[in-house]
C-alpha cells in the first residue's frame, strides 16, 4: 500500500514516510553546479616553492570562495602595490612585496605566539603582551625594580637600556640576550646601596621577568624584512641548539635535575606560530628562486589568513560546545 502526499511517499515495507523532495534535491544540485563553476573560475592559486592550491581544496577545508576572496583582499592591501615608483617620493613608502609579505605573516601570527608562550611559561597574557612592546618591557622592569625597592637612577636606566638596546647584537639569540639582562639586573642589585644583593632577589619574580625578557628579545629578533634574514635567524638558532645539545651540565631548579634545560628554551618564537603561518614561511624558505612572484606571495598570506580564520572558528566552536 502506498500513499503519496506532496513530496513524501509512504513505503509499506519500511512502515513510514520517505521524503522524495525532488525540488530540494534539484536546487542543491544547481547550487553545487554553480559552486563548481565558481571553483573553475577561481582556478588554481600559485603558492611559493612551486606549490599550488585550488578553490576546491579550500572548500573541502570549509573555506568558501567568498571567504577566500576576502582573505585575498586583506593580503593584497597588506602586501601593497609597488609596481609604480611614485611612492619613492615620500620616504619609506617603498617596501618591496617580499618584505611586506614577511612582515605581514609575522604580524598576523604574533598574538597567537605570544598567547602560547604565555601559557607555556605560565605568564599572564597582559604581561606577556606588555613585554613585546618596546616601552612595555621597560615598564615591567621598572615594576620589578620598584618591588625590590631599588630606586631608579640614570645609571640604572642606562645599563638596562644598553642590554635592551635594539640591534647590533649580531648572532646572539634571545636566550643569550636574556642572560645579559640577568647579569645586568644582578649587577644593579649588588650596586644598590639599600639592597641586600643579587642573591636576595625574589626568585619567582626574577623567573617571570626573565621569561618576559626572553619573549621581548624573541619578538625583536623577528622584526625581519626578508626571507634571507629569516633563514639566517633560523641557522643561528640551529647552531645554538647544537651547542646546547652537547651541553651536559644539568641545571637544578627546585632541587630537580633537568636534562637539556637550555635546549628547551633555545627556540625562535616562530616555532610557536600557528601552523598556517609556519607552513607558509617554510614554503617561502624552500622557494628556490631569488625573486618572488607577487601573486604567489599574496596567495600565501591569504592562505595564512584563512588558516587563522579556521583556527578561530574552531576555537569558538570548542568554547560553545562546553
Amino acid at each position, binding site marked *: 500500500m502506498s500513499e503519496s502526499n506532496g513530496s513524501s511517499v509512504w513505503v509499506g515495507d519500511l512502515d513510514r514516510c520517505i521524503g522524495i523532495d525532488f525540488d530540494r534535491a534539484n536546487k542543491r544540485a544547481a547550487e553545487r553546479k554553480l559552486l563548481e563553476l565558481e571553483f573553475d573560475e577561481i582556478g588554481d592559486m600559485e603558492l611559493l616553492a612551486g606549490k599550488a592550491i585550488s578553490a576546491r581544496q579550500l572548500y573541502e577545508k570549509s573555506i568558501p570562495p567568498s571567504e577566500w576572496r576576502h582573505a585575498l583582499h586583506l593580503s593584497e592591501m597588506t602586501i601593497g*602595490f609597488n609596481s609604480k615608483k611614485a611612492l619613492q617620493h615620500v620616504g619609506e613608502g617603498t617596501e618591496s612585496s617580499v618584505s611586506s609579505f614577511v612582515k605581514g605573516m609575522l604580524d598576523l601570527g604574533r598574538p597567537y605566539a605570544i598567547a602560547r608562550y604565555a601559557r607555556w611559561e605560565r605568564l599572564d597574557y597582559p604581561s606577556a603582551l606588555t613585554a613585546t612592546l618596546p*616601552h612595555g618591557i621597560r615598564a615591567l622592569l*621598572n615594576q620589578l625594580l620598584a618591588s625590590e625597592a631599588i630606586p631608579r637612577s640614570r645609571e640604572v636606566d642606562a645599563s638596562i637600556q644598553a642590554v635592551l638596546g635594539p640591534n647590533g647584537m649580531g648572532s646572539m639569540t634571545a636566550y643569550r640576550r636574556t642572560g645579559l639582562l640577568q647579569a645586568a639586573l644582578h649587577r644593579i642589585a649588588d650596586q644598590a646601596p639599600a639592597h641586600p644583593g643579587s642573591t636576595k632577589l625574589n626568585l619567582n619574580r626574577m623567573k617571570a621577568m626573565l621569561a618576559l625578557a626572553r619573549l621581548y628579545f624573541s619578538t625583536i629578533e623577528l622584526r625581519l624584512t626578508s626571507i634571507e634574514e629569516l633563514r639566517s635567524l633560523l641557522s643561528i638558532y640551529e647552531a645554538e641548539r647544537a651547542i646546547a645539545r652537547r651541553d651536559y651540565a644539568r641545571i637544578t631548579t627546585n632541587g630537580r635535575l633537568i636534562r637539556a634545560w637550555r635546549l628547551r628554551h633555545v627556540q625562535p618564537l616562530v616555532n610557536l606560530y600557528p601552523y598556517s603561518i609556519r607552513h607558509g614561511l617554510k614554503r617561502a624558505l624552500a622557494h628556490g628562486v631569488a625573486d618572488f612572484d607577487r601573486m604567489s606571495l599574496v596567495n600565501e598570506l591569504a592562505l595564512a589568513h584563512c588558516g587563522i580564520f579556521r583556527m578561530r572558528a574552531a576555537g569558538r566552536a570548542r568554547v*560553545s560546545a562546553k
Partner: protein
Amino acid sequence: MSRVYRFHGPADISAPTEPVLLWKRKKGAVAPMYLIAADAYTITDKSGTRPIETYQFVPGQRSVTLTKRESDLIALSNPGAPPPVALEDLHPWLPEQRYLNDSASSFQALKLIILRFDRHLVCASEYCDEKWNTICNALRQKSVLDERFYTAWHLPIQDVHVLEERRLDRSVVSIDFNGMYLACMQQLFPKPSGLRLVRLDRYLSESEVLTSGLYRCIMEGPLTDFIIRHNPFRSFHLGRHFRARLDEPVEVDLNEFEVEFYRRHFQSIRLVEAVISDGVVSHPLAKEVCRSFAKRCNYRNQGNKALADREKYLATLMTSCAHRPARPRRTFQTRDQAMGALRAAYGIDPPKDEPENATNIWLQRRKGIKLGAKDGFVIVHGPNLRDGSACFLLGQRIVARGRIVLLEMMERILDCAPGVEICYTNIDSIHFSLPTEHLDPVLAWLKSECSDALGSFKIESVTRHGLWLEPGRYWLYSDDVEKFRNRSVGDQKHPFKDHAIHVVSRQLGKLHVPIRVTLRMERTMSPSRSLTTNPDSIPIRQHLIEIGNATTVEEILDELEQNQEHFTPIRIEAFADLRERMNSSRFAASKREEDAKIM
C-alpha cells in the same frame, strides 16, 4: 533599491510605549590639577627640579603638563606609570604653547597660563553634562521613536570632486560658513515627547507642506544634473560609506525640510511612513549658542583670540551634548542571536555574501558599537537608543540642516557664472574653481552676501590653484600655499609634512605603556575614491565608489584594491610634485632677494 542609513538599513519598529524621562547626569568631583613640566632630562613641579626618572603619579590628582611633547617625554621615560595629560589637549582653545626644552621655564609658563586662564578652564565632559541637564529640564521626556533619528543618515556633506586645479585661466575660491551648526540649532524641532508614527504610503503631492518630522521616502528618477554630479547620498557597506546609486530607487529617512529640497531633484518621492510631532520646540540651547557666538565675535574684535576660540569650542560641545547615550553591554549565547539584536536595534544587517570574518573586522574597528566574545558568550557593546540618556533628534536634525544649507549654496554657486566647478566640500566649507574672467563679478556677488553674522559665510581665500587629495587633505596655493589641511598628519605651520609621530598610552593590566605610532600619509589615504584615467580629462576628477542593491562584496573589494594600486600613488605623486614646486619657487624668491641685497 539603494538604502541610505547610518548602517545597512532601518531598525525594527519598537512597540509603542509611554515617553521616557530624560535622565540628568550627576556632577562628579574633578580631581585637582597637579602642575608639572618636563624636558628631556628633568621634571619641575612645585617642589623643584629633579631627574625625569623620579616622576611619580600622585593618586587623587591629575598631573598636567603644558604641552603634549612634555607629557610624551614623561611617558617615554617612565613606562608603566600613568602619564600626565597635556593642558593643550584638555583645552584646545588655549593659545598655542611651544615646547621650551627647559623644565624650569616650562613650569613658569604653565603657572602663568593657569594664572591667566584658570577661571576659564572648564572640563569638557562636565560642561556637556551641565548643558545636557539644561536640555532635560526643558524637554523632560522623549518618545522611544527618537531612535529613528539615530539610525537615519547621519553624515554631513563631505566630498572631493577634483584632484587638482592647475589650469592657468582659472581661479579657486573657498568659502566657510560662520557657526554652521549653531545656525542650524535655531530651527524648530518636532517635540520629542509627542512623536508618533504614521503610515502614509502615498506619493508626495506637488504643493504639500509637511509637518515637522522624519519621513521614510523612496525617491526615484533623478532630474537634475546637480544631484547626479554631486550626489550626496551614502550607503553603508563593509564598514565604509559609499555613494548610493541613483539609477535605482533610493530609500532614505529625511526631515521635512530635506524632502522639500530634494523634491525638485527627483521625479517622484514616495512617502512610506513618518515619525512626526504636532508640537514643535526650539532647541533648549538655541539662545545660549547665539549668546556664545556674540561673545566670540566680541572677543575676536578685541583681539582676544584665546577666549574667542574658547567660545567656539564650547559652542561645538553644545551642538553635540544631546548625543551621549549610555553604552550598556549585552550578553548573548550565540553569534546569530547577537547579530539579530544588532539588526533589530541598529539596522546592522550585513549582506549574505559578506564573510563573517569581514563583518568581524569592520565591527571591531568601530568606536560606537562593538561585538566581542568572553567566556564563550558573545557580547554586544552599544548605545542604548531607548532610554533617557540621549536625545538623537536634536543632533540628527542639526546635521541634516547643515547638509541642506551646503547643498543650496553649492547650487547657487554653480549658477553664478559659466564654467564654475565645485572641487571640494566639507561640512561647512565649499571650494570651487571658475574661469578667472568671471572672478570679479562672482566675488562682488559673494561680498554682497557674506557677513560676520551667524549662519552667513565668509570668503576664506582666493587663489590660483588647488590640490585636493581627499576630505580633510587639501592645499590652496598661488605662488605659495595660502590655506591647507592635512588630516591626522599635518600641523598648522608645515604644509608639506608627510608623517606624524604620536605617542599613545595604552593600559595593559596595571601598567600604562607608551607606544610610539608613526602615521604616514600614504598609509592613511582612503582607497574609497578613484580618479579619471582619461588623459584628456583636465582636471583629473575623483569618484567615490558607487554601490546599489545588487553590488556584491567582491565588486567592492576589487574596486578598493584597484584604487589603492593605481590612484593612491597618483595622489602621493601630486602632493610630492606640489611640494617640489613650492620649495623651488621659495628658493628662487629668496635667491632674488639676496641678489637684490647685493646690488
